[in-house]
Structures are given as C-alpha cells and as structure tokens.
C-alpha cells in the first residue's frame, strides 16, 4: 500500500540484522500526521515496522542520509541521501505480542512503515501487568509509559550510568520509589549503600536509615558492624595486623581461634559446635581481650628467663594501693611492667615470646581507642565487654538481630549511610557488608527469610569508587560474587556510577539491564556500548546528546531498547545531590546573597565531631 500514510520506503539491502531502506520519493521527510498525531520521519532512535506476511519486524533507525547508502551503491548513487539504516530488534505477530529476536529476515522490496503510537503500545504497553513498574514515559511518544520488568531488573542485575548532573540519583530514587510501593510490593527488600548520604530526604518515609554517628532524634539508627562477624582475612585487613609474616599470622590465627572456642564453650550457639567451628565462623570474641592478652604475651617482662616464663613470673608493677597494675581491657589500658635490668638478684628479663608483632599490638591499641572506629570495634549491643572477673562475657545480642534490622525491618528500604566511615577502611567495609548479607541469604536460601523467597536488591551508589578494575579489594570481590552467582540465590545488584570506564568490566558486563544517561566522555561511552549485547551502536551514539533525566534503557528488563524521560520525583522525594547554587535567584544562598554574620566556631565543632547534622557531644552547645 504505497499510499498508506505510514509508508516510508522499501528495503534495499540486508546484512544480518542491519538493513538499509530507501525512502520513497513521495515520502515527505519531516512531519507526518497519522490519526491526529504528528510523527517525525527519520529520527535516530525511532522505530520502523517492516511487514512480511503475517509478521511485523521492528527495527531502530541508527543512521539517516548519505552515510546510510549501502557501500556498493555509493558510487552509482552519490546523492543517495534518502536512506535509512535500521537495526532489527524483534518481531510481532499481527495480533499477538512482541518478541525479541528475528525468525525471518526481510528481503528486497519489503515495505517499511512508520511506527505509530498504536504499534508502540503493542510493543511497550502492558501497564496492568503486576511485574512491570513505570519509570517515566517514552521520549518519542509521551503518552506511552516506560515500563520495566522487575523480575529481570533485579535478578539479572542492572547498571545506571551517566555524567554528574544527568539525573542518575533522581532516576535511582524514582525507581526505588516505584519498587517500594507498599500497595504493590509490600515485601520489597532493598539495601542502598549510600556513600554520600544523598537519599535520606528522597526516601524518608520508606526507608530505615543506618548511620555512623546516627542522629536518633531524626529516626536514624546507629550503624554497627561487629568485628567478630568478619572473616579472619577481613578482620586482618582493617586492623594493623595486615601483612604479617607466615609464622606470626599463624600464631594470631591460633589465638583468635582459642578465643572463639572459649566463647562457644561459655555460650553454645545454634548451628555450630566446637568441632565444626573455624576461625572464620561468626562467633563473638573480644578483640580488646585479644589485644590485651597479646600485649601481655609479647610486651611483658618476667622475673625468669626464656623457657621458665609463665604468668606467675610476670614482673608487673605495683600501684600505690599495693595491687598489681593490670590495666584495663575495655579501657585499652595495658598493664605496667617493670623495666628490664641487666643483673642483680631480682633480675627482670624480656618476654621470650617468639612473635615479632610488638608494633602491630601498639597500633591496635590506638585503633581500639579511636572513637571513629567504634561502630566496628565497640558495636553497641554486639560488643562483648570482658572484665577480669568475666573474661568470656558475651554480647547482649547475636547477629540475627543485626540482620533483621537490616533486611527484615518494617520498611522496604534500608539505607546504609557510609558517609561517616573513615576512608581508609571504606572499601573493605563495603565488601564486608555485602559479603555478610550475601552469606546470610545464601545459607538461608530455602527459608522464607532467605533470598529465593524474598529476594534482596543491593543498590551500589558511586560504584566506581570501590568496584574499579584492578582493585582486588574486598568490595570488588563481593560485588563480583553477587553479579555472577546472585541470580540463583535471589540477590540482585544495581550499580550506579558516573565513570563506567573505571568499573571492572566483568561486573559491568554481567548487568543485564543498562540505564544509560547522558555520557560525554568517549571512554565511558565505549565501555557502556561494549557491554550491551544488542547491535545498537547507533542508539548509543545519542548518549552525549541526551537531555537531563532522559535515559536509554536496554537489556533484559525491557522488551525493546527504549528512550525514556524519567518522571521527576515530587519535591520531597528528590535526592540530596543537586548542585549548590552559585547564583541563586531566590538569594537564599550563593554568591549573590548579601553577606551575613558567620560563626566559624560551629564550623570547627562540626569538623571535630565529624557529623554534619547533629553533634557527637550531647553536652556541648547545640
């Protein structure tokens, strides 16, 4: 029907999934009106429909004009600017639904048609399906919602990439709001690793917020990561004991194992016996006691030499009250030893301990005293508090309470705000967090609480900071494990980054769905294009020219690659990531505001308390 209003031209060249279409001479390039809607002909990224018999093939326009002339014809027809190059993506029965993949190819002379809103609805639309959430509207046809299959989105992982300011955080916030809709998905389970503390405002009523230095008046809960839940390797990485030689390390492993064994004997724990326990089993032990006992072993002085030394020969100084100065375990206060002497009847000798770890013990002492690390080494109810009377004191709570507070709370989203965590251990800490939760859900996979029944979505913000290629850190390792094996155990990852080029390609290529926002940097773009399975380079060439809030979604969670405009969340649901204003028309801030009286004493107070919102010192000035 060459006089059909949707008619564009005929297929002239087929090369695999790439076909060239010669526009008909009568086709106006520009605007066409069909059923009252205006369509632009030959827009990059728009669709064409090719009818062959009872099937319709659908393709995306990737090139328009002279460059799209098939190579063989370029000489014969140098003015062949009326060409379209199209990437085939799928097919649909005349009445049935749309499917990815092509069962038969078009041939020369087949008619190509403009895709109308009616066709698009057929391809994209099924707003009623309960497993689809709406994230916005198609950029090309604003009446059609952009829908995403949440099954695929979560279990096959996803990545959200885009330059700073392209709307990444807003997109993520908008997705999270849709996914945590209490009416549709009351059991949703999402964990957001929020490095900069951006999501408080956006998800306030849907999320429990855990934070180091929590401001409990704002409903935040303190973030604790008990050190004894870490595996030995993880623990060594965050303490000065990293990089020990083999002999010293073996001695340390033995010591930790003894402490865990003693703890298990003091209080039995379900699921583990003395025979099955390893040094990595999450059993409470006291790191303060470990430090104290190592200190007494290595740094003590004795009244006997070498092999004759035992606890009774320790030369501990006596205080003014006549008692030995044993120090304090939880106060991280070592005992006082008498100095060594070189002769005389009461000669005092150095410890005969064969371990070369004195400096590590000293460094651990200052680490345990550092209040910035209290979230890990004094984890509130999970901290065993040994005293000399009760060395095997047990923590008030076990890990089940911790895991429940993270993934079993009343609210669907848990934000772990890591903005107060010291940078030196941030990477290891993220790895530990992911590993802990993954392990818990992995081993519980057949329980109703486990990942198979109630899957968990990890949102990894600013992922380039800790998932970069060549980084063999714990975070990278843990994330690789999720993207490779998570699907089977109900753990999904959403990786959010502005520098996809810096993310480990293994991780990026495992992300089944890609939300690509504006990306100006060519290296980043080629990384993203390279990980996408579809033959869609033409579509991805649009990346530098996308509008703010506009996203190209390709992959498993969508039937067809789609270009969508994300719904901007309501004002109270915007992430706290917008740029500060240099010129603020309301003059509430920025350089155009009149200068005001400023108080740098409170600047210093915030800096010292390392807390931008509250203060760590409740007795201090507000």
């Amino acid at each position, binding site marked *: 029907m060459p006089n059909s209003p949707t008619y564009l031209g005929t297929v002239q060249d087929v090369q695999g999934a790439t076909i060239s279409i010669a526009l008909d001479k009568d086709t106006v390039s520009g605007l066409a009106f069909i059923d009252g809607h205006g369509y632009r002909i030959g827009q990059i990224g728009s669709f064409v429909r090719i009818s062959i018999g009872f099937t319709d093939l659908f393709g995306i326009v990737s090139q328009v004009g002279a460059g799209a002339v098939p190579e063989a014809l370029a000489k014969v027809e140098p003015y062949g600017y009326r060409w379209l190059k199209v990437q085939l993506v799928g097919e649909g029965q005349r009445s049935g639904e749309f499917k990815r993949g092509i069962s038969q190819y078009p041939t020369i002379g087949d008619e190509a048609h403009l895709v109308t809103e009616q066709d698009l609805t057929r391809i994209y639309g099924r707003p009623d399906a309960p497993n689809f959430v709406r994230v916005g509207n198609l950029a090309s046809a604003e009446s059609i919602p952009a829908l995403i299959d949440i099954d695929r989105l979560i279990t096959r992982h996803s990545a959200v990439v885009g330059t700073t300011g392209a709307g990444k955080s807003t997109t993520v916030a908008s997705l999270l709001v849709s996914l945590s809709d209490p009416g549709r998905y009351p059991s949703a389970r999402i964990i957001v690793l929020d490095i900069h503390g951006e999501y408080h405002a956006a998800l306030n009523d849907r999320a429990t917020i855990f934070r180091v230095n929590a401001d409990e008046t704002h409903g935040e809960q303190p973030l604790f990561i008990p050190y004894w839940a870490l595996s030995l390797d993880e623990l060594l990485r965050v303490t000065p004991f990293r990089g020990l030689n083999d002999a010293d390390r073996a001695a340390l492993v033995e010591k930790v194992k003894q402490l865990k064994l003693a703890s298990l004997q003091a209080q039995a724990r379900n699921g583990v016996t003395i025979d099955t326990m390893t040094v990595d089993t999450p059993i409470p032990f006291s790191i303060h006691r470990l430090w104290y006992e190592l200190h007494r072993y290595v740094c003590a002085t004795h009244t006997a030499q070498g092999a004759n030394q035992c606890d009774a020969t320790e030369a501990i100084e006596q205080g003014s009250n006549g008692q030995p100065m044993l120090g304090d375990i939880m106060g991280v206060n070592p005992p006082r030893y008498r100095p*060594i002497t070189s002769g005389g009847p009461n000669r005092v000798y*150095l*410890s*005969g301990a*064969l371990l*070369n770890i*004195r*400096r590590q013990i000293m460094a651990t002492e200052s680490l345990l005293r550092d209040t910035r690390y209290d979230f890990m080494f004094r984890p509130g109810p999970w901290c065993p508090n040994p005293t000399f009377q009760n060395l095997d004191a047990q923590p008030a709570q076990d890990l089940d309470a911790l895991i429940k507070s993270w993934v079993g709370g009343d609210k669907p989203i848990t934000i772990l705000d890591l903005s107060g965590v010291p940078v030196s251990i941030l990477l290891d800490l993220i790895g530990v967090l992911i590993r802990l939760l993954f392990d818990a859900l992995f081993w519980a996979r057949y329980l109703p609480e486990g990942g198979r029944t109630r899957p968990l979505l990890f949102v990894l913000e600013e992922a380039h900071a800790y998932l970069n290629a060549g980084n063999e850190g714990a975070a990278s390792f843990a994330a690789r494990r999720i993207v490779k094996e998570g699907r089977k155990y109900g753990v999904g990852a959403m990786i959010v980054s502005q520098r996809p080029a810096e993310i480990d390609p293994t991780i990026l290529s495992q992300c089944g769905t890609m939300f690509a926002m504006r990306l100006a940097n060519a290296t980043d773009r080629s990384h993203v294009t390279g990980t996408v399975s579809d033959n869609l380079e033409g579509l991805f060439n649009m990346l530098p020219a996308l509008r703010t809030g506009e996203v190209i979604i390709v992959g498993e969670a969508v039937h067809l690659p789609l270009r969508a405009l994300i719904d901007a969340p309501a004002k109270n649901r915007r992430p706290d990531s917008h740029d500060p204003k240099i010129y603020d028309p309301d003059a509430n801030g920025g350089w155009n505001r009149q200068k005001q009286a400023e108080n740098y004493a409170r600047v210093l107070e915030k800096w010292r308390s390392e807390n931008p919102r509250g203060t760590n010192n409740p007795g201090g000035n507000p």
Partner: protein
Amino acid sequence: MNRTPVSSSNVASVGYDPNTLTLEVEFKDGSVYQYFDVPETVYQELMRASSVGQFIHSNIRNNYRYAKV
C-alpha cells in the same frame, strides 16, 4: 633477608629489615637469631662498632626480644 658478612671472632654475618625492625645475626657456629624491634640507629651503630661480637653482647642480647631461626 640479605645478610652482609662482618669480620668478627664469633659473628659471621648481619642483616637488617627496616620495615619490620628485625635484626638478623648469623653466628660462626651456624646458628641464626632474629632480634625484634631493633631501631635502625642501633643497627648502624652495630655496623660501625670496632667489635661486632662485643656490641651484640653488651647492647643487643639482653635488650631486645629474639627468636632463633
């Protein structure tokens, strides 16, 4: 650890690792001892001492913890 030979009546060679502050001494009878937490200045003094064996005996042997390798 690399040890440098020294001329002494009972010490064969001496080595030092500034990262772990470990001094390693090989005696003429073939035994090797490691002394822990030895500052680098002490090691330098040792290497300058007129008698290495005597310096070890008077300044190192009873002042630092050690292990036989």
